[in-house]
């Protein structure tokens, strides 16, 4: 009896969640369309960085980890630039109350500086 309940319950949840998932996706899309273009550009940059990192990991899984420092520097540079992009987005977002007195030029200058340091380290570590 319990077995049957369990299977029926799971099927019900999965059917419900499939419909909910579609609703969710449409809701997210409509909500996201409202974000300013500037932030969307930053989001594209972040997603591009993450996709590149995933590609590198898949390549590493296929080819092996030698030389490990090249792999590490590649993946960490992609993750790093994505993280810095997210930081920039948080600082530039007009909806963020904490950063209202921070001019976006300053935020961008900090972003460039941090990226410079990051890539200097990456180039040193590539080997």
């Amino acid at each position: 009896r319990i077995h049957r309940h369990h299977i029926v319950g799971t099927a019900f949840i999965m059917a419900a969640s499939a419909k909910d998932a579609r609703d969710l996706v449409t809701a997210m899309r409509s909500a996201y369309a409202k974000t300013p273009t500037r932030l969307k550009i930053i989001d594209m940059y972040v997603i591009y960085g993450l996709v590149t990192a995933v590609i590198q990991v898949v390549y590493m899984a296929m080819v092996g980890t030698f030389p490990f420092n090249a792999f590490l520097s590649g993946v960490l540079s992609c993750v790093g630039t994505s993280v810095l992009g997210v930081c920039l987005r948080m600082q530039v977002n007009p909806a963020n109350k904490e950063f209202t007195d921070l001019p976006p030029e300053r935020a961008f200058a900090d972003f460039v500086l941090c990226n410079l340091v990051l890539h200097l380290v990456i180039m040193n570590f590539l080997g």
Partner: protein
Amino acid sequence: MAEGGPLGLLVFATILALIGVLAFSIRLFSVIKYESIIHEFDPYFNYRVTQYLTKAGIYEFWNWFDDRTWYPLGRVIGGTVYPGLTLTAGTMWWVAQKINIPLSVETVCVFTAPVFSAFASWATFLLTKEVKGTGAGLTAAVLLAMVPSYISRSVAGSYDNEAVAIFALVFTFYLYIKTLNTGSLFYATLNSLAYFYMVCSWGGYTFIINLIPIHVLMCLITGRYSARLYIAYAPLVVLGTLLAALVPVVGFNAVMTSEHFASFLVFVILHVVALDRYIRRTLDEKTYRLAFTVVVTIGTTGAVVLVGILVALVAASPTKGWSGRSLSLLDPTYASKYIPIIASVSEHQPPTWPSYFMDINILAFLAPAGIIACFRPLTDSSTFIILYLVTSVYFSGVMVRLMLVLAPAACIVGGIALSAAFDTLTRSIKYAPAAPPAVSIATETEETPGLIASPASSATTLKEKAKDANAEKVKERVAKRKQRKERDAMEKKHVPEEASEDKLALLPVEASAVGLVLLILLASFYVVHCVWAAAEAYSAPSIVLTSRTEDGVHVFDDFREAYGWLNHNTDENDKVASWWDYGYQTTAMANRTVIVDNNTWNNTHIATVGMAMSSPEKAAWDIYRSLDVKYVFVVFGGLVGYPSDDINKFLWMVRIGGGVFPHIKEPDYLRDGNYRIDDQATPTMLNSLMYKLSYYRFAEASMDGKGFDRVRRTEIGRKHFKLTHFEEVFTTHHWMVRIYKLKEQKNRVRGKIKRKSKAGKSKPSSTTNRSSSKGKSQK
């Protein structure tokens, strides 16, 4: 800092400069009392590496393979040393040379630690200012400039990693808190660079990369997620890991050892929380809940898979991915069970209770008061300070050496407490005669039950609490029962006056004045104790010993005498064997190749030397010959009463040697569970090389001919014996270092060889018969 105008600014700047001068000069006692030399053991290695750096340049330094230690293995210096200290001192020396100040490398090395302790005080000021304000900052800086625990590892001459590492630690924490408070990516970059400097300097950097994730996790759990937290932590993880991997000592350990996994885990958790917040902001409530359930179901399955892989990887390694030293911190009994070398170092023993009072003095009881002060109000930065204090208290309880990490935390928290106390008391005095209601607070205590809560909580000093708490409690109960109405009326009247003073009520003027005087007395006790500790307890260079006699001070300079003798009277390629304690000093001062040194990276090699010291003369001679050793020296304190000699360290030689070579059994050397060298000692002990090399000619040379050992306080067991395989070449003035040379193998040995060769001829033939017969039977 804005208060007080230009005069206030001037006073502030003067105080800060004087703190730096104080931190520098309190550490100069050793230079004044002894001379400007490098102390102890480890600093000699750092000094030698710095010498090499200044002579050969940075590229040679990175690629240096040292063949003058761990003969015949050698040591890759570039890959096994934390370069921060040597690079810092080398840079300072180079800068001084460029501006035509001809400082020698030794001078720069000796004074590196005091200079950086001044910087550390200023960094403590900056950190505490971020948490609580300028007053607390200055107090904390003064406390750190003088705290004995930090002085003990940073006197002039103590040229060790901690000298710059504590500055790097505090500075990294300051930049982290600054980023957390301002949310500026610029400070996040600086934070990563400061963390890089810390990784270069000391193995204790793992403390930073584990404490900051714990703090971030705590902020996430208590609902303090903000964009500033993300900016403070996420770039640090990525940049910090990369920078840590750049240092050759750490290398790929930055991503592969368990010490760093906490940072990655919290990195992932932080992103999950950030994503969750973003979705919650963009969607409405209902769809958000849907999204939440979907993400949770997908996320948990993914997380379970990942965690499963991680656990499998970690469980595959025998130490679960942690290094031996880190494990011995987490499980204090680990080292004594598995790694006797780590257990044998005296710095790695747990501290005793009195050592807390000796090392951080009044901060030991100011710290809890400071923790309470950190809760009012509780900000991100004050939670960090509380976490830092609690974790460092735990680690200081595991290992005496880590009292040093506790010192800045205790100073910060103690500074906050002292500053808050001073604030309350001086405020009470300053605002006391202002308005009648204020006076009525002081005199008519029945009317202030509603205000009792604030004075009781604002009196953060223990003395004030003890004095007022009892009085306030009694009055509170009486008044509450009697006058509730009057209390409400009084509250409404007092709120407008209090609002301007942040709801801190005022204490009576007399009590405040007495409290102030007592606090100043307390601080002066601290100063007196710190200066005494710096002058008497922590300034000994341990390579030069002194003792007071009726004629004045008697100096024991035996170590340098012995190394000088070795330097001048032996060939440059001769190998010298001793216990590993003296390896660094021998290579640095005597400039001879040694077998084992303080790096203790190869347990088997050390066990070989330990076995040789525990074996009889012939066996030891064989072992040393196999290692190409020409000279052996032992440190002997029996004539003058120097307790840290090799006979007292002998038990470790037996234990470490016995750990690798099973024929060395510790019970053979013990009589009733004790190591003895008198006539009750076991024959194995009396025949061991250590005994013979220490006590050779000791009985003849002592005044009464009986050979009384002043350290063990007994007469020695075996008094008159000759050495067959070693010859004594030098004994220092106070017999503290005794150098022996291995005798050459005899050219001809009469009698024994003939008998042996006859036996040898007969034996091989029988064995060959046996083996050939075996072969035949096997066929």
